[in-house]
């Protein structure tokens, strides 16, 4: 055994670093394992973080967090090959403390957050992959992890698995059942370099302001969505694709990004951008319906490892959910260590903590959203229908008089192959989901 710690946290993503920070600040001995050469080196995402969850953990975090731009413009776009409808919201309030969302590079943000844990006393070991658990639930409990280094066993009273989506440790602990590919999407993105001034002109932004565009109808018939975010001197453009549909379509994710970039609405925004990075990653899109048991004897699971990323169509929030659940895991671990009960029942407070804050409250409230957003009509029929409807309403066909919205809706629904009953049911379902 290389060493014994109170807690081993596996994965220095936002969930792991938040858990390690809470524990190290409370004086516990913590080892934070990361397989990459530095925290964040392996991590990709779309690009917007909602860091208000840090208010209590790192007061005035905005003065030091490595932020690219503060998001002051948020748009939701419905695209077809030739049409687009955008709901575009801007506010100066999001450009001032305490801010709302920020674009940030994960190698910067994750390294910064892990640095906080190290400052507080956590021991960070990079280029070290946890390959398995020591001990097992029910058989004396989990007592540490095995790693890929020589002499690579670390003992711990508790393990917190923050190893991201498709967590091998959570699976080994028997926390997950058989994985269902319908609960996963693949995110792929290109980072394109453009001068800051060009980005500001194209997106209508001031110097530190950023834009966040969420897009439906740009994925070549594969269920999913697209996004476009602005960093200081790059833009991130990418897609999130339903795994089974992507496989069935035989399309490559980069081809789908290419077709999105060629869309007449997107093309002028990214024109001339030089590709500086291409990356892809799985998303545990299922949310509530794929939620695993969150604890085992001697182990807690947080962040994407516990499928806590919120992918609810207009909201794609994972980093704040990872930090929120990591903090809750850290607090629960503290309690359990102090009471000397690290068994699964001793860790039951974790779920209560998550239910008592936004993490499980939002997941429960939006539990129908992933299914609704990936449904056939939302993906394949409504974008065209909504754009046609808007076009019909604003096309002046004199000498014909104007038709009412309902008449247009009836016509366009029929053209899109949607029955009015289905439309009403979907509207009611959307209201139930988001209302």
């Amino acid at each position, binding site marked *: 055994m*290389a060493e014994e710690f109170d807690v081993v946290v596996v994965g220095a993503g936002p969930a792991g670093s938040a858990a390690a920070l809470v524990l190290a600040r409370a004086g516990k001995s913590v*080892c934070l394992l990361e397989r990459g050469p530095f925290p964040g080196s392996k991590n990709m995402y779309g690009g917007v973080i909602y860091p208000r969850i840090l208010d209590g953990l790192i007061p005035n975090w905005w003065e030091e967090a490595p932020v690219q731009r503060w998001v002051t413009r948020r748009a939701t776009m419905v695209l077809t090959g030739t049409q687009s409808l955008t709901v575009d919201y801007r506010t100066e309030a999001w450009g001032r403390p305490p801010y709302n969302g920020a674009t940030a590079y994960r190698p910067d943000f994750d390294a910064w957050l892990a640095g906080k844990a190290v400052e507080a006393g956590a021991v960070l070991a990079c280029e070290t992959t946890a390959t398995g658990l020591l001990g097992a639930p029910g058989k004396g409990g989990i007592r540490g992890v095995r790693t890929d280094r020589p002499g*690579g066993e670390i003992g711990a009273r508790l393990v917190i698995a923050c190893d991201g989506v498709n967590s091998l440790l959570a699976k080994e602990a028997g926390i997950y059942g058989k994985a269902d590919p319908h609960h996963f999407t693949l995110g792929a993105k290109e980072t394109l370099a453009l001068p800051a001034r060009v980005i500001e002109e194209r997106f209508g932004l001031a110097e530190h302001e950023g834009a966040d565009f969420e897009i439906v109808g740009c994925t070549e018939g594969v269920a999913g969505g697209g996004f476009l975010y602005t960093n200081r001197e790059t833009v991130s453009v990418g897609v999130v694709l339903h795994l089974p549909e992507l496989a069935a379509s035989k399309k490559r994710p980069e081809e789908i990004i290419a077709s999105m970039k060629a869309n007449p609405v997107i093309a002028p925004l990214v024109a001339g951008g030089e590709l500086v990075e291409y990356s892809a990653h799985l998303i545990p899109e299922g949310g509530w319906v794929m939620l695993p048991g969150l604890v085992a004897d001697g182990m807690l699971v947080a962040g994407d490892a516990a499928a806590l990323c919120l992918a609810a169509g207009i909201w794609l929030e994972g980093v704040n959910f990872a930090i929120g659940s990591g903090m809750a895991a850290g607090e629960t671990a503290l309690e359990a260590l102090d009471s000397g009960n690290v068994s699964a029942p001793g860790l039951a407070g974790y779920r209560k903590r998550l239910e008592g804050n936004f993490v499980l409250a939002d997941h429960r409230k939006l539990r129908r959203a992933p299914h609704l957003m990936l449904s056939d009509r939302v993906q394949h029929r409504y974008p065209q229908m909504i754009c046609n409807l808007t076009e019909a309403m604003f096309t002046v066909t004199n000498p014909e008089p104007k038709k009412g919205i309902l008449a247009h809706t009836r016509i366009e629904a029929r053209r899109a192959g949607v029955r009015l009953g289905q439309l009403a049911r979907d509207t009611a379902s959307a209201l139930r989901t988001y209302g």
Partner: protein
Amino acid sequence: MAPTDPGPGPVLVARKWVDRRPTVDLLTGEVSTDPRSSGASEADEAALEWGLRLAGVWGVGVLAVTAGPPDAEAVLRPALAAGAGGAVRIDLTSPPGHLAGGAPSSRAVASALALVARTAGSRMVLCGDLSLDRGSGAVPAFLAGELGAAQGLGLVSLAPDPDRPGHLGAWRRLDGGRREELALAPPWVCSVEGGTARLRRAELAGVLAAGRAPVEVVTAETSGPAPPHPARTGPGRPRTHLLTGPDPTADARHRILALTGALVERTPPLTLTLGPGEGADRILEALRAWGELPGEEFP
């Protein structure tokens, strides 16, 4: 009584820290580095592995050394993790009047390393033969000069004599695929090629301990002659010239012609073939004639 042999001391492994993607502030010329994009070359990694192997055979320690700012400790921690017993960072300061921020000369780095080697009682020094920034590769040779040590540079293989600590056979490439074989006895300075040994994967206990291990910091002066480049570390800014404005009463076309100097007769470009000394004189003469050396700052 015969004096006892002090032995060859620990193997000193010198590692050059280089940031592969430093950022330069275009306005101030300030260079910032990032530990995440910096590291040591493949040759320096090989040197560390050879150092650990030799030390293992002879039962001596390994001391890892680098010269650079605090970020440079990024190349010392992996050495500690892999088995080095100690680590020293040399903080090189520029003497007054020296150019701040320029890379220290190979000689200055070598004399600082020599100081550390003497203090540690090390008579065996290993380096990589090529750094990440493809520097001059002259440090090992200067260091051997400073220590009065034998040199084995650009080696491809080393074979320690298990019975005589510090003694080893070494091989380096010659033209035509031939090898030169050297027999070295301490004191020696060797540099090895990259790829001749693959750095071992550090044990977990080593990695955990390395994060907390102290790194000794020694301060040394870059006392050697100033390197020729860069002559100045700030951004290049052309001198300002006072220009009299165009005649305000002239029409727009003439004002633009006057401002741009278009259509004005000028000295055509001149091609001269001169020796280096004469060439330098001729350049100074031209600069003087153009008013670029008002204070005659350059002797």
